[in-house]
């Protein structure tokens, strides 16, 4: 949990969290309150309003010039499912802080509102050629991974030609985000197969991430490859559950042979 503050075992109530987020004296408390409201899915109007305010905060600044409170507020708004956040989050996509843009793209993916698609597409301007590392920073020019994953989830079929070249991007995570999105948008096997190839890669992190991607897109042909991956059974079970859910969605109430095969694989991993 990268956004989970470590030394705060503090128990909050909804009222306290909202009050903590609104006050201006203690920045640590505000930052924690923003995270807390998202974590505990506090969907009250007042909480949303306070988070939307936090999205414009100027006070909380990181040494790198970033805006930690805005980042946390964006993440929380993604979890709360309130469509009023779509426009403000879309505006965040133009904000100078990379991590605010990244959090906004991830939140917009979760909110399932297609209005933001043109703004997400704009972040792919310049294509792969422009998608290089920022000097002195550990990240690329744009949060490509988050943007491309959001476009895939939101069903932005108009962006297929822009996303396709990113399946050749030198950064593995971007490459696989593009493969995942392309599979979601085209249902072409070659993109699912790219993700399957990632399951046998050398890097455990990438294998785990490919497991999550295959589960999320429900690429049914991956079931055996998922079960055989050198990774924790807990991750493989989550991925297979994703496949099973996709398969159940596609059919009548009878359980198909394919579903049974997936369940047998899951049973063997318990």
């Amino acid at each position: 949990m990268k956004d989970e503050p470590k030394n705060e075992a503090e128990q909050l109530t909804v009222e306290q969290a909202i009050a903590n987020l609104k006050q201006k004296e203690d920045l640590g408390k505000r930052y924690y309150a923003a995270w807390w409201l998202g974590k505990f899915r506090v969907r009250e109007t007042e909480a949303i309003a306070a988070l939307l305010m936090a999205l414009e905060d100027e006070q909380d600044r990181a040494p790198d010039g970033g805006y930690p409170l805005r980042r946390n507020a964006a993440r929380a708004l993604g979890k709360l499912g309130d469509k009023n956040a779509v426009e403000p989050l879309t505006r965040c996509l133009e904000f100078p802080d990379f991590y605010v843009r990244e959090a906004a793209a991830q939140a917009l993916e979760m909110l399932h509102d297609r209005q933001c698609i043109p703004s997400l597409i704009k972040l792919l301007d310049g294509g792969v050629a422009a998608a290089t590392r920022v000097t002195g920073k550990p990240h690329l020019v744009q949060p490509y991974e988050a943007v491309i994953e959001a476009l895939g989830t939101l069903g932005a079929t108009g962006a297929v030609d822009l996303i396709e070249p990113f399946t050749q991007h030198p950064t593995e995570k971007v490459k696989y985000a593009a493969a995942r999105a392309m599979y979601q948008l085209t249902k072409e096997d070659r993109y699912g197969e790219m993700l399957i190839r990632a399951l046998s890669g050398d890097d455990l992190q990438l294998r785990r991430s490919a497991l999550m991607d295959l589960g999320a897109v429900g690429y049914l042909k991956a079931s055996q490859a998922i079960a055989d991956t050198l990774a924790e059974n807990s991750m493989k079970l989550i991925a297979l559950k994703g496949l099973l859910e996709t398969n159940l969605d596609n059919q009548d109430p009878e359980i198909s042979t394919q579903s049974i095969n997936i369940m047998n694989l899951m049973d063997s991993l318990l």
Partner: protein
Amino acid sequence: MSDVQQLIEAVNQADSADLLLKTVEDLAEATDQAAIPTLVEVLGFNNPGAAVAAVDGLIKIGDPVVPYLLKNLDSYNYGARAWATRVFAGIGDPAALDLLLKAAVSDFSQSVRRAAAKGLGSIIWSKLPAEEVITAQQKVLKTLLLATEDGEWVVRYAAVVGLEALGNTLAISQPKLVSEIINKFQALIISEPEAAIQARIKYAINNGQLLTDN
């Protein structure tokens, strides 16, 4: 050095994740009791591939593994605990029954609860003195019914798999317990929020002898 000693030595010398996997696979293949301590040790390494191979090897060795593993459980490393629980589940020796009963509902790690719930369904009852079987089966049933209410989907899924297996072994000896399982399944089909688990329950009902025997 005997062949097994050489294989153990190779595991100890492995200096990469790939080599560890390869050497553990070879050692597991030997199915030799002398390999038990080394294979158990591998469960504590953070190498899922090697751990799978070690689990398979330990299950193949079978009963002699159980007392050693019970004595050497690493209670701090929950990854190792989850793999060890899978070994107990795979062997089915009732000597691990108390441990599995406790782990299924109270272990802090969901991977351990999951493996324990599955394992409770595959106890080899003929290894238990006949007079103890009925009480033990009732305990297992009670524990698995409780596990179907776990907060984690994967534990609930494993509890359904455990109940299905238990139901199949009880079909003749204790038909009354079987009907408790069926009643629970029918209630869960309505109350269970996860489509994947609902599907697994339907599969259990359609597939098993559960309904026909009732």
